């Protein structure tokens, strides 16, 4: 049952060294504040799972927190490469990391299978794809009716999933709107789930019945962090900070500049700083 906690405590109670953790968000609603809190608390040996590792995983890899990355697209969305991730993969800096690489279809299906309590996901994929040769976690099953050979990948079952969402009700139900990505699946697939939200409302009365709502009993902890998705965005609250994504390309290009930026913008800051980062990006609510 969801408990409302300060972010620091929500992270401390639900993430452990060596965990398999997913900080999910598909361009939209990236849980940046939770990731920065995890960085401040200095976890180690994490297996970081995400379809689209972007700035926050670049930062966690650059800070030496990751043992392994499971992913399907490791880019700075709309900008280019992830330079800290590259440095780790190409040069083993700050230390070598393992990678397990999939396609989006495989990762999406693997989260779906995790949410569905299945040991593996079955889909039509990886035909002719080089990943099937370098990733031992790509298997196959044969349709017993047609004989067609389909791809199979193990279900994803993170120890803990972190997501950012628009709203929680007082009883702890969580609403996700807009580009919803794989967040619902990532939460339902995980043993524990921590959600940061823009705001808490009294209740969800009057909400359309078919929206994406995670009932309180599927969530472990909720922390209220307005702006907690910056420089990503929260549909209905504030826009994407495209400039910050462009800037990251320069910051992350240099090891020292990266370190200095992290020191100034993450290590010495708190989740309370996020609200002001999005103040210029807020817009009239649609």
């Amino acid at each position: 049952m969801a408990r409302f906690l300060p972010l620091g405590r929500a992270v401390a109670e639900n993430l452990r060294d060596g965990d398999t953790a997913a900080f999910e968000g598909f361009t939209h609603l990236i849980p940046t504040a939770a990731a920065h809190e995890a960085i401040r608390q200095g976890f180690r040996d994490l297996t970081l799972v995400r379809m689209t590792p972007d700035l926050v995983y670049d930062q966690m890899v650059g800070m030496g927190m990751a043992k392994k990355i499971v992913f399907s697209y490791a880019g700075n969305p709309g900008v280019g490469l992830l330079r800290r991730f590259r440095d780790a993969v190409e040069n083993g800096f700050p230390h070598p990391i393992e990678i397990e690489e999939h396609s989006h279809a495989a990762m999406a299906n693997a989260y779906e299978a995790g949410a569905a309590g299945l040991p593996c996901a079955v889909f039509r994929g990886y035909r002719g794809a080089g990943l099937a040769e370098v990733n031992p976690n790509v298997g196959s099953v044969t349709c017993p009716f047609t004989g067609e050979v389909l791809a199979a990948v193990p279900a994803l079952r993170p120890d803990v999933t972190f997501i950012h969402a628009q709203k929680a009700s007082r009883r702890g139900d969580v609403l996700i709107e807009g580009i919803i990505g794989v967040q619902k699946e990532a939460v339902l697939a995980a043993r524990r789930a921590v959600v940061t939200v823009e705001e808490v409302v009294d209740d969800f009365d009057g909400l359309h019945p078919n929206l994406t709502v995670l009932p309180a009993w599927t969530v472990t902890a909720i922390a209220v962090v307005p702006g907690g998705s910056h420089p990503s965005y929260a549909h209905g609250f504030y826009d994407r900070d495209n400039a910050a994504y462009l800037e990251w390309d320069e910051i992350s290009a240099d090891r020292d500049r990266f370190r200095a930026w992290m020191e100034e913008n993450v290590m010495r800051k708190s989740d309370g700083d996020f609200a002001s980062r999005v103040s210029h990006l807020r817009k009239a609510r649609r």
Partner: protein
Amino acid sequence: MSDAKAAPGFTPDEMMTIAASRALRDDDVCFVGIGAPSAACNVARLTHAPGITLIYESGTIGTAPDVLPLSIGDGELCDTAVTTVSVPEMFRYWLQGGRISVGFLGAAQLDRFGNINTTVIGGYGQPKTRLPGGGGAPEIASSAGEIYITMAQSRRGMVERIDFFTSFGHGEGGDHRQRLGIHTKGPTLLVTDLAVWKPDPVTREFTVVALHPGVTRDRVAETCGWPAKFADRLEETPAPTDLELETLRDLQARTKAAHARNRRQEAV
């Protein structure tokens, strides 16, 4: 296009985007890659194909963005979509379900058979340059009805042998797709900044079928890493019309203004 007025000046990039846009039809359902494909698809929507359905892998179906998205999941895509679904649903019902007529991809490395690499330069285990990876492309390449590719020509990009098979095109050519149990058409069009290419009906090797205005065979050949083949009868790509060029430039100007609007410097 023939009786529309051609614009006097345009860049090779503009020609590429516009030539690519012309391949799309009003009734296409197009899975859109970011970058050059996104511009081409939206120019098509804003000119000759207003009914086209554009789908981005973030789950946005039937989007009509007023500005080009920087990422595959910009809010603009959701705000203007007919509906927005989850990413698992996108890949299961819409792509794997066979609902996509055209997958429109870019490429870091491309070979003559339309195989694409966006994963790694060098060996997979010892990469020289680690690229972002495939994302949706491996299954777009096999599940979309056909694949259009667009990229600027360079010997570094159009290579004899790609370092990694991110997305399978025609493999080693011929019926290689069929032999792997892939029943979609695969790459049927390549539009570069210099030419329009189509696969040979038998070998499936990309062959130049049209040169953009003012482009020579030599220019195409020297910017391509494999020995370029040319069709017996080479067409000239019609130059951009005023409408096409204005539409593209307006779109890009709106995009630039929108992406600059939220820069922190200006807000402070």
